[in-house]
């Protein structure tokens, strides 16, 4: 903190914040915070609905691409600056993945590390002050008279009070009471991409599908016997056709098939778990910060720290679980191959 640049940056941030607060707010009290699971639509671009999460995703991508390119632009044997930071991060990831997957970490590294980096940067960008609280009020059929401009979600407890200053303003402007418009929600410009269910779903699908790919690459077609293990039951029917009935074999075959079905369901469950774990944590974090902001002036601060921790932990867990599942899929399941040799 001795670095004067840090102080200059903090002061500049405060000044910019003050300017935004004094000049850009139209009517802070008029809007209620938007808490919507589905991302709000900011505007329509040639038939494509652009959401805050997509805008933030583009920002996140720009940050990551700049980091990726500038950190390795001229690699030195003795690292310094950005290269050092990037190398340290990559080395930590390598150590982590090596601890989980052993020497196979190289196969899984690209996907798991990319997931980690994308998720952690997304989560942190979602925590930038202003993300979720600076936005526009959207016009729609119900609200044709919404004010234009950029708004900050203020300290007015509009979220809790049913009658807001917006109504009072409308009343003061002579709008008859029965024609009062409903409060309008603020659509933030920035919102963490991970709090839009599409990104967690995309990552979960990539993770689970690539797990199957690696499993099949490691074990060939035999990998699928993990889910569709009808070998014993087919053997039972083959034996029955020849005339020996082994009832025990039949029941074991049924159990095998059932275990396979359970594996299949749990594989699908992994997609849901991955998706909702990430989405739920980040979205809940945003909602909690918002609600705390409306309850008491400084209450969000400890939760803000907690959200930083959660942001890191979720990225970490997503990557670690991806590697762990991939390792499980590529490992030979010893029991079956053992049995196959005996028969």
């Amino acid at each position, binding site marked *: 903190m001795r670095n004067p640049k840090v102080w200059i940056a903090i002061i500049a941030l405060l000044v910019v914040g003050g300017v935004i607060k004094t000049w850009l707010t139209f009517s802070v009290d008029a809007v209620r915070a938007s808490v919507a699971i589905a991302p709000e639509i900011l505007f329509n671009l040639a038939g494509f609905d652009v959401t805050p999460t997509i805008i933030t*995703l583009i920002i996140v*991508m720009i940050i990551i*691409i700049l980091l*990726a390119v500038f950190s*390795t632009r001229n690699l030195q044997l003795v690292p310094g600056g950005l290269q050092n930071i*990037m190398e340290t991060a*990559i080395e930590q990831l*390598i150590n982590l993945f090596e601890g989980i997957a052993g020497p196979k970490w190289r196969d899984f590294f690209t996907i798991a590390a990319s997931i980690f980096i994308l998720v952690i940067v997304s989560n942190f960008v979602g925590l930038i002050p202003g993300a979720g609280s600076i936005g526009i009020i959207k016009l729609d059929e119900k609200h044709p008279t919404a004010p234009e401009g950029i708004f900050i979600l203020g300290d007015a407890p509009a979220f809790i009070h049913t009658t807001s200053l917006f109504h009072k303003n409308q009343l003061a402007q002579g709008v008859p009471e029965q024609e009062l418009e409903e409060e309008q929600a603020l659509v933030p410009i920035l919102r963490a991409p991970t709090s839009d269910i599409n990104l967690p779903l*995309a990552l979960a699908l990539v993770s689970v599908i690539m797990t199957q790919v690696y499993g099949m690459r490691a074990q060939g077609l035999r990998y699928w016997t993990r889910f569709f293990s009808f070998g014993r039951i087919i053997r039972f029917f083959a034996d029955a056709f020849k005339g020996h009935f082994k009832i025990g074999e039949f029941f074991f075959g049924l159990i095998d098939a059932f275990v396979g079905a359970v594996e299949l369901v749990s594989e699908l469950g992994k997609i849901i778990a991955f998706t909702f774990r990430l989405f739920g944590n980040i979205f809940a974090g945003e909602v909690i910060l918002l609600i705390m902001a409306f309850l008491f002036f400084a209450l969000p601060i400890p939760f803000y720290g907690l959200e930083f921790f959660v942001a890191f932990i979720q990225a970490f867990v997503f990557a670690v679980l991806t590697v762990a599942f991939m390792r499980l899929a590529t490992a030979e399941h010893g029991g079956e191959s053992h049995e196959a040799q005996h028969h």
Partner: protein
Amino acid sequence: MDKLGINLPWFLTQLTGFLIVLFILRQFTYKPILNMLETRKRKIAESLEYADKVKADAAAQQKDFERRLDEARREAQVAAQSAQQAAEQERQRILAEAQAEAAKIKEAARGELDYERKQMVSELRQQVIDLSVLGAQRVIGANLDDRKSRQLVENFLNEMDFGANGRKPASTREGAGA
């Protein structure tokens, strides 16, 4: 699904975003950094090996140096010892030489003394002869043939065996008295 916000265009946008990030990270970050880490690991292993080698060399050199130092020390000791011995020998030699010299000088002195005594004896003898001849002339009053009388005394002295080697046998005193 729709109320959760899952819809195909958004999903595809997010997926594409992830794939772009994945591709760029792989191309610009993972490959070079993994290579760099590998290179650095190899370099470090190499330099550690080199350091070990240098250390071993230094140890060997140190050992060699100590060995040589030991050798030199031992040699110096040997040299000192031999020098001491030589000095002792020299001392002995010089001593012996000196003793020999002293003996020689003593011998020489004794020889000279002898010679002088002989000289004195022979001179004394001449004088004794002269005296006796002179005495006898006075006694007999005649001029004795010098040569002949001398011969006589000489013979007498010879018979007395007097003074030939500086020793004085008992008979000499008797002869002289006669």
